[in-house]
């Protein structure tokens, strides 16, 4: 009798701990359906278009920037005509409407993150975004959680002084 209850209790405790840890999911997201089946593999992989060609602000602003429809049209006025997904771009362009992309990489609003600083520090896009050039549908590869950021910041510090700066809360929290 007593033993049974003891067993039950310990299972409950174990489960609740597991549940608690499970809630704090550490991985990234799954693939997200976009309004246009845009493939980074075709653009960045097969066609070798540099990241900064479309994400033009990555080396000069906090945000990398999502290309304007005009940018898409720059090529697709000529390239890929007739393909149904490209036609969608034309539709948006003709309607003068922006494309409602779904956000894949979303940082919390209390985080200050500057693409510029990271790009200038020589952090490759793939470090955080993964092998984008091989993804048909982009998914979040890194957790983008604080611990993940801190681990990288720690590893990149050359000396103690730099570590202090890189691990200062105010470096990333606003």
């Amino acid at each position, binding site marked *: 009798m007593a033993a049974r209850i003891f067993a039950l209790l310990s299972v409950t405790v174990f489960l609740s701990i597991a549940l608690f840890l499970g*809630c*704090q*999911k550490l991985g990234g*997201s799954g693939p*997200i359906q976009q309004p246009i089946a845009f493939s980074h593999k075709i653009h960045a992989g097969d066609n070798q278009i540099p990241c900064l060609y479309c994400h033009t*602000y990555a080396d*000069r*602003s*906090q*945000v*990398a*920037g*999502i*290309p*304007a*429809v*005009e*940018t898409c049209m720059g090529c697709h006025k000529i390239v890929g005509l007739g393909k149904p997904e490209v036609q969608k771009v034309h539709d*948006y*362009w003709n309607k*003068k*409407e*922006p*494309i*409602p*992309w*779904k*956000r894949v990489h*979303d*940082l*919390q*609003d*209390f*985080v*200050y993150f*500057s693409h*510029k*600083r990271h790009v*200038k520090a020589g952090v490759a896009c793939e470090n955080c975004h993964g092998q984008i050039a091989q993804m048909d549908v982009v998914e979040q590869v890194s957790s983008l959680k604080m611990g993940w950021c801190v681990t990288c910041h720690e590893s990149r510090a050359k000396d103690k002084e730099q570590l*202090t*700066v890189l691990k*200062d*809360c*105010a470096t990333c*929290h*606003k």
Partner: protein
Amino acid sequence: MQVTRRDFMKILGATGAGVAATSCGAKLDKTPIEEIIPYVVPEEDVVPGIATYYSSVCRECPAGCGLVVRTREGRAVKLEGNPNHPINKGSLCVRGQAGLQGLYNPDRIKGPHRKNEVGEWVSITWEEAQGLLVEKLKEVLAQGERQRVSFLTGNISGNLDSLIDSWLKIFRSENRIVYEPFSYESMKKAGEIVFGVEAVPTFHIENSDFLLSFGADFMETWLSPVQYAKGFAEMHRPKKEGGQGRQMGKFVQVEPRRSMTGANADLWVSVKPGTEPFFALGVLNEALLHLWKKEGGDARKAMLRSWLSYQGITTPKVAELTGVEEMTIKTIGREFASAKRPLAIGSGVAGSGTNATATWVAAYLLTAITGSMGKTVDWGRVQNVDRLTPFTQVVSWVERLKKGEVDVLLVHQANPAYTLPKSAGFSEALKKVPFVVSFSSFWDETTTQAHLVLPDHHPLESFGDYSPQTGIHGLYQPTMRPIFKTQPMGDTLLSVAAAFPSNPFKEGRYLDYLKSSWSALYPKGGQNGSLESFWQESLRKGGYWQETHSKEVSISNRLFTFKVKEPVLEGDGEYRLVVYPSVKFYEGRGANKPWLQEIPDPVTKVVWNSYVEIHPEVAEKLEVRHGSVVELRLGESSLKGPVLLNPWIQKETIAIPLGQGHEEYGRYAQGRGFNPLSILPLQVETVSGGFAWTSSRVRMAPTGERVLLVKTSGSIDDRNRDIAGLVSFEDLKAGSVHREEEEIQDKLLYDESWRHEKGIRWAMAIDSSSCTGCSACVAACYAENNVPIVGEQECAKGREMAWIRIETYEEPSTKGTHPVNVPMMCQQCGNAPCESVCPVYATYHNYEGLNIQVYNRCVGTRYCSNNCPYKVRRFNWFAYKFPDTFNLQLNPDVTVRDKGVMEKCTFCIQRIREVKDHAKDEGRLPRDGEIVPACAQTCPTNAIVFGDLNDPNSKVSRLSRSERGYHAIESINTKTAVTYLKKVHNGLRTA
């Protein structure tokens, strides 16, 4: 800068840059997937995540300060003064800072409206609206009578002004009223009487060494408050220049109720209301006497003396009349006369009775006889108030309205139903006008009585120009796409005009009209380059300023026929009523801006309400206390309001601020406080025809009720705790002011040697001597740091969220004659008591000496606030909402704090970060003065200086070493990063 381009711009067209929405909520699961909306065509000025700045002009009052508007992702997020503008030189006042809340106000009229048969407002399209107006105007035109169309505007100098005049001519009308509640008629008139020049000059307060003001509130609302506050700070600064030892100007303010300006005076003289002219003449008399003794007599002096005796002025008589001691009058007269470049001004609104012109006559004479007229008064640069319709004409225009002599009335930037005294009967007159059109942005008291509303763009959304003074042409431009379906009034007028055959305008759009008119300035400038580049350059700079040449004036003979009259007072009450303009609301236009409602009045520290100021002894007599409601009665009219005790007011005087008591206007203004204009009699200044604000005697009786009247101040006595510092200029000059370094060493449990002395330590130096208490910094902080407003009930619990507050202490040792303003924000202590008590490291000391608050780490134990000796931490008691459309103003660089989180000032760390980011791109360190926190940026008197304390050459470290420097409550060894500089008062020698 093409509007067509901007048409593509999405207001919220974001990009990916964090639009500061909610924030700190812990989210265990993934948040719902957001959408990112890119541009269709990229905006060439806009890089998402990077601020873009546009020059503009502040249109919150007629002063016309220059603006630089910070925009992010196509939204204006912060207003700052234009550093190159000759008037405000980079600073803004509290009203200017709050301009954004006019732009984003949720109570703005969101499109054109028509009143239907049953008196309800119906939303219509612009085509319908313009059609309706055209139809009405055609009817009027068909009748063939002149002057049937009337146009009422506020002070809108510049091209819009001339456009309206030409536009009216289409309808054979010159019936144009330019109405401002504060219109300076007595000043203009006095200029004419004394010098034969009917104008309002500019004053160079910075050049004077003795300023005597008869109630002019030049740091609050009078003419150009930022400009004059700057001038005052320069004049009143203990200077070391010139190798002649230290110098510092003196300032004497004469008024019945101590205003914020008066609180900054070296000597505040309390006179009976309405007797300012006699006091001024008394001082003139003494000054003349002194000059006579010093320089000997001459014909002019003799004439003036005989003129004075014609007025019946003798010092004992003046003393008796004004209630001021003879010695004081003599001292002021003597000191004035012996100053090198004295300046006398006055009166302001609060002191203008029926004889206000006389005060100005005396003031001009005082400046003139000492020979400093050219140095301290500039007649070559005059204020644009000459365009204003004199009050008497406004009154007679209202009478004409009552008689039904106007068929169509158009109202722009004016709200006479609120700002005219009720006794003028404007509301009744309005009912007699068959068709009233309002261009207002708000449902104010006049607009709600209109028939058609054609809401104008906010100035920050439109093109325009404004010229506040001779040679200063401010130019403003759209800084963002309009939020609502509004239309610039210029465009509306032009397209209406196009429906008439006699349309004199070539241009179809106001921008083209403005541009072509602007070209008229082009040759004057003698510019190189094309007209277009001049236009672009003007847009970039925020206007075009010309040099002016000062004009000599001399005393005219007309003066000698001028006779000062006794003030006329209406009513038979015991108390004289003084009504004064509010530094926050002006005459009431600011009342629907919640920042202005929540920022405490600099003098009374009251929020969200208005009040009847009475002397404590009177309160004792009437057996009322703070918040007790009294009834004021004048003839038939009466009003009720809560009492506020003010020791710095004449005993037989009661004072009421303007600005509250709106019946309409918006959710923040409506039904709040009371409007003293509802009781004021229609008294006119006898000589100039201006409105006599102070001309009534009222009865006062307690009602027995008591209401909430929230003051944010606890005690105004600093109890010798080293919070407020005060020294006399004499001591400073004699070198007897020393830094009281309270070095506490070897008394600590811990060794302090680990603390970094290398690297950067961000710090501030705040000069109490310069701080006027104007609270512009508070508004700037609200705007910059997404500080929420909480409302009156919450303020009553001290829950206002201001990160910086102006603490005003009345030193008991000086019997309250020198209140000291201490702007109090987080002191970024080296030994911060808040840090060690936080259980989760949400607050800690960073490597640049800042006391960081990590909002999303905070669990809300509030221990840090308890342990903060300066009480500068604020707690989010609720989830404070930023209602639509105020949320568009939020600064994306600053987190919006969630409920349950502690927050505080971190010296605008987002600005530090921005500058450091920029400097790093250039491979250097931030330069001294490159980082400017919002409070320091806007301060009209530059009282706040920010920089690196560890750099011995930085401005802040030099100031921190000043002999006047001290740290607040130094004895508790918090090692604060803020150094306060003691206030210096330059008292008058009474010998």
